[in-house]
């Protein structure tokens, strides 16, 4: 089942199994850049990124500074791959 293009914060909380305050915090920290920041609407890339952050914090118990560094490195790897 594919996700609709944009979803609200409330819908994302259910999908990702996280509190809305936490996801809002991710936005404040600029760990995620919602497709529509003004209305807090999220697309499938945001969902996948939130799940990655959740894995880093809950499964790997990485602290906030570590999460930021890892996200940066992951973005860099994906960018390098994109550029070919």
């Amino acid at each position, binding site marked *: 089942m594919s996700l609709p293009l944009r979803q609200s914060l409330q819908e994302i909380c259910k999908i990702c199994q996280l509190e809305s305050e936490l996801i809002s915090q991710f936005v404040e920290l600029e760990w995620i850049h919602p497709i529509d920041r003004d209305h807090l609407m999220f697309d499938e*890339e945001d969902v996948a990124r939130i799940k990655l952050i959740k894995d880093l914090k809950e499964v790997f118990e990485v602290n906030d*500074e570590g999460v930021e560094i890892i996200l940066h490195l992951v973005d860099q790897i*994906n960018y390098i791959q994109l550029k070919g």
Partner: protein
Amino acid sequence: MSDPYQILGVSKSATQDEIKKAYRKLAKTLHPDLNPGNKEAEKKFKEVSHAFDQIGTPEERKKFDQGEAFEQQHAGGGGQSFYGSQQGGGRYSSNFADAFGDEDFFQNIFGGKRRSRDEFNFPGEDELYKLEVDLIDVVHGAEKMITLPSGKKLQVKIPAGIEEGKKLRFKGLGGAGMGTGVPGDAYVEIHIRPNENFKIKGKDLETELPLSIFEAVAGGSIPVRTLDGQVSVTVPAGVSSGNKLRVKGKGLGPDGNLIVIIKVIAPKAPSEEFIHSMNEMKSKFNYEVRK
């Protein structure tokens, strides 16, 4: 139906902590964002994740153990990985260059502000100069001309009574700043040269006063060397080595004293006549010193 315990490699009696640790260990090597492009790892990660969802919490584990079917709480199961979402040009990857470019990422993380490369404003470094002074400079105060590491000449006023190791600060006389950065400060650290005749004891000075056996027995007015000259000290009759006398106001600073420590010295190589006279004296005036 697949067995989540088997997939995670734990026994049915494993604790929740053991289950979490097992999942974490597998996730490290299978997570698609930590192993980008590895399709096999991604497939296995989905299996392992699903297994962890089934027994990762006490509530879900109880349901599974009781034979209840696991219900996905959310649509799409595990969903796609972040890596997967970026393939073919995701927003986050495409915008990477715009977001960070050549800037120092770690500077942004750890609190540095964005700085234009044309502006480079730094405050100057502080400079330290170690200055040796004599005890007499400390007693009366002094002025010394020094040359700082930067080559600057500085007239330093040493206040009377200054302590060993004290730093005198000269604002803005250190290293030059860059751009609009303020210059650093110069620090002059005071070190007092050891003096062979006087020891510093806080605000007081200590000195040794050698006395002959005649002076030790009879006492009298004895000249005592001070830092800046000499004074006559009345030594009472019957002093011994180690006894202390105090000369007021002759220490460091106005309320410091000079502590005079008596040292009785017998003559070296006394003559036969001297020894004979002393033995005669002893028979008349002997006193106990060993109890």
